[in-house]
């Protein structure tokens, strides 16, 4: 090497070094990266818990997903991809799963993550001692002996999960579940560090104590104010993590949060109801409507305590037919929601709403006409008995707006009168759960990305069947679907029954409306479960 080339190489290296600092680019897309690699977003309330075993809400699971990593992750569309597990296989009978764990995975304190950590975490989540509200999720996973473990009739060691060696995990379930692998992307199945929990007890989730295996570590937590996470250098894939800091700010009031977003204090916030169209016009690249795996519907009280008229299927059909859902989603909600005529969600994995859903081939005028005829047949038409229903909802302006609009549609089309009643949340749940209502607002979000998570709620045994509906045919179809090879036709039939028999009146499928700063990239806008990972996100430099 000549002296000249040496100088050339040195200056080139120096140039690259300084250049790299000023203008780093994304390794895959080549976009220029901002120096400020932070992401700040709004949450509604303090997290009930960020302990994976205890997490019970969506916002808490977003945090747990940054601090921990489970067996499998979701990609931007919600499909499974390797997490701590690199390979997995299912036994012939579909009852035993074996996961190979990556040996390079470590906890943020440097100790290796092993199969024993998963065994401990799963046993802990199901244990009566922890008393996790999400222990039922373990039941949903159909783990061997899970019910007896939860009731305390069997020791946690009997749970159907064990470590074959440090890096091999075996899971035994009692019924084949087509969506089992999706289920292990859920936070309840994340590993937790036994050595840390045993040292600190309940205080292990405090900053300074908390140890995770995710791409981020907890650095600050002030209840009701903020939670800050910073990049974990011990994460096995830390070299590919670009965002340095993720901050969740607790802002109870969504309008206040929007003002602060406008002032640049936040990257992401929720859009208050009805404001999406206006904000989309003002910020076309920053206002987003994302699919959300939730459905909004009205429960009809079909129990003894419910109104006699609702026991007549023609009345229920007429009430459902008379609701102009297009008008509601376009004019009242105006945030990219989708009309619902059944409970099977359009965006749920592996499900398609059947083309021949009852009554959906009719125009709105035909629907109104049919509704009037049905009402008349049932003896409640013009000249018949006037009907009055009370719509019960939990106190909220949005629910009220919708109830007013629906009441008006019923009044105009059917001459049915409505009165509105609202109750504070806990009192509302009490009234609805005990069938002390006539018609009550309800919402349901999927526990896992599969149609049964929606369709199960009208089965006789469901704890959420507040309509007190019971249809043996529907129950049988859902039971059959548990073990069926091809579940789609069964689910579609259930959805048709719901549309025809109207145990509930489906109204719309939710959408999430958010403002997202346009320098933030890598957020999974396509994932209906909004499962986001800070490790895939980054901020680009502004031109």
């Amino acid at each position: 090497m000549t002296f000249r080339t040496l100088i050339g190489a040195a200056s080139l290296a120096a140039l690259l070094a300084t250049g790299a600092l000023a203008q780093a680019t994304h390794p895959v897309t080549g976009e220029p990266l901002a120096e400020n690699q932070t992401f700040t977003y709004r949450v509604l309330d303090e997290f009930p818990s960020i302990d994976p075993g205890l997490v019970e809400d969506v916002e808490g699971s977003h945090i747990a997903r940054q601090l921990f990593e489970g067996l499998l992750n979701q990609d931007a569309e919600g499909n499974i991809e390797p997490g701590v597990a690199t390979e997995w296989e299912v036994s012939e009978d579909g009852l035993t799963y074996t996961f190979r764990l990556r040996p390079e995975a470590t906890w943020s304190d440097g100790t290796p993550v092993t199969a024993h950590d998963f065994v401990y975490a799963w046993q802990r989540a199901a244990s009566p001692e922890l008393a996790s509200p999400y222990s039922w999720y373990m039941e949903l996973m159909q783990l061997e002996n899970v019910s007896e473990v939860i009731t305390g009739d069997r020791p946690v060691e009997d749970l159907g999960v064990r470590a074959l060696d440090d890096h091999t995990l075996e899971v035994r379930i009692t019924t084949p579940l087509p969506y089992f692998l999706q289920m292990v992307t859920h936070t309840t199945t994340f590993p937790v560090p036994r050595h840390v929990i045993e040292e600190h007890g309940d205080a292990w989730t405090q900053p300074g104590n908390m140890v995770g295996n995710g791409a981020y570590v907890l650095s600050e937590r002030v209840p009701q104010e903020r939670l800050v996470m910073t990049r974990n250098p011990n994460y096995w894939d830390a070299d590919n993590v670009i965002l340095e800091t993720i901050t969740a700010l607790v802002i109870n009031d969504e309008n206040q949060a929007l003002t602060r977003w406008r002032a640049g204090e936040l990257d992401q916030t929720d859009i208050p109801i009805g404001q999406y169209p206006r904000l989309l016009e003002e910020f076309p690249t920053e206002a987003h409507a994302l699919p959300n795996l939730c459905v909004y519907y009205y429960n009809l009280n079909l129990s003894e305590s419910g109104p006699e008229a609702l026991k007549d299927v023609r009345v229920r059909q007429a009430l459902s037919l008379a609701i102009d859902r297009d008008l509601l989603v376009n004019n009242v909600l105006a945030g990219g929601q989708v009309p619902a005529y059944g409970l099977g969600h359009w965006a749920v994995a592996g499900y398609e709403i059947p083309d021949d859903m009852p009554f959906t081939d009719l125009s709105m005028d035909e629907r109104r006409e049919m509704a009037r005829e049905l009402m008349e047949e049932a003896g409640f038409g013009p000249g018949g008995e006037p009907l009055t229903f009370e719509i019960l909802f939990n106190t909220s302006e949005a629910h009220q707006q919708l109830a007013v609009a629906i009441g008006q549609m019923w009044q105009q089309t059917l001459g049915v009168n409505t009165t509105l009643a609202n109750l504070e949340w806990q009192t509302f749940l009490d009234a609805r759960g005990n069938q002390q209502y006539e018609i009550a607002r309800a919402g349901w979000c999927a526990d896992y990305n599969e149609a049964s998570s929606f369709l199960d709620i009208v089965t006789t045994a469901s704890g959420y069947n507040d309509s007190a509906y019971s249809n043996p045919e529907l129950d049988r179809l859902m039971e059959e679907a548990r073990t069926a090879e091809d579940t789609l036709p069964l689910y579609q039939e259930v959805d048709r029954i719901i549309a025809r028999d109207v145990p509930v009146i489906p109204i719309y499928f939710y959408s999430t409306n958010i403002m997202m700063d346009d320098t933030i990239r890598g957020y999974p806008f396509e994932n209906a479960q909004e499962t986001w990972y800070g490790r895939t996100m980054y901020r680009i430099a502004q031109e």
Partner: protein
Amino acid sequence: MLSFILRRLLVAIPTILILIVISFVLMFAAPGGPFNSDRPLPPAVMANIEARYGLDQPYVVQMFTYVKNIVLHFDFGPSFRYRDQTVSGLIAQGFPVTLTYGLWAFVVATSLGLALGIAAAIRHNSWLDYLATGTAIGASVLPNFVLAPILVLVFTLWLGWLPGGGWYGGQWQYVVLPVVALATSYLAAIARIMRSSMIEVMNSPFIRTARAKGLPMRRIVWRHALKPALLPVLSYMGPAFVAMITGSVVIDVYFSTGGIGQYFVNSALNRDYPVIMGVTILVGALTILFNLVVDVLYAWIDPKIRY
């Protein structure tokens, strides 16, 4: 005086116990429960949770255990809603926040309120009086849930001078807007009470005598009128002081300060029994304490009052 204070402190103990009993009864009378949610939990899971928190015990036993833990261990229990936190932890984190902005708001409201009230009273029916009264009425009809968003709109979004929320350990930029939003209505109330009380005192015979003696106005106001005129304000300021330092749900919600004010509302909505009890006892104890302080101040200001 000392025996009076001691007697009052002794009476405080049964008062707080009665407060605890009433709160417990009201709490359990409300429908719903801390672990009821949109999706009902399976009975086995609910049973585990209830066993963990002692909710499977009879109410009387729960109440007794609760009081016992406070008396013996000063332990206010875990939060049911925020399972990573204890009630003591939440209060230890949130109370300094509300104490900080509450004290500042108290200082601002009292000093400006008194000044405004005195100025209006001694320049009775002058432009100064109208200005002061107008300001006071304006401030009292502007509730803080209207004022707070306006302040953020103006100072955060339009001017960009101050952050729209957060606390960050109480750095001054984060304290200003909560203080202004909280102080305004108290300031107005203090000004109005001070004004009317001062006008009354200024018309009383002993002030007339002082004037007749030819004392200068300044001396009349500061030496003779101020102390008796302060009495009604003082009885307002005792509870107002407690209300300010325990924060306000509006301030905490709009400015995301992390103070304890919000727990008065959301712990009740969440049926978070231990947090409801914790903040109730805190406010109860502070109210008793500051009522006592006011009574002692009374005696100091007005020699006619003897205990």
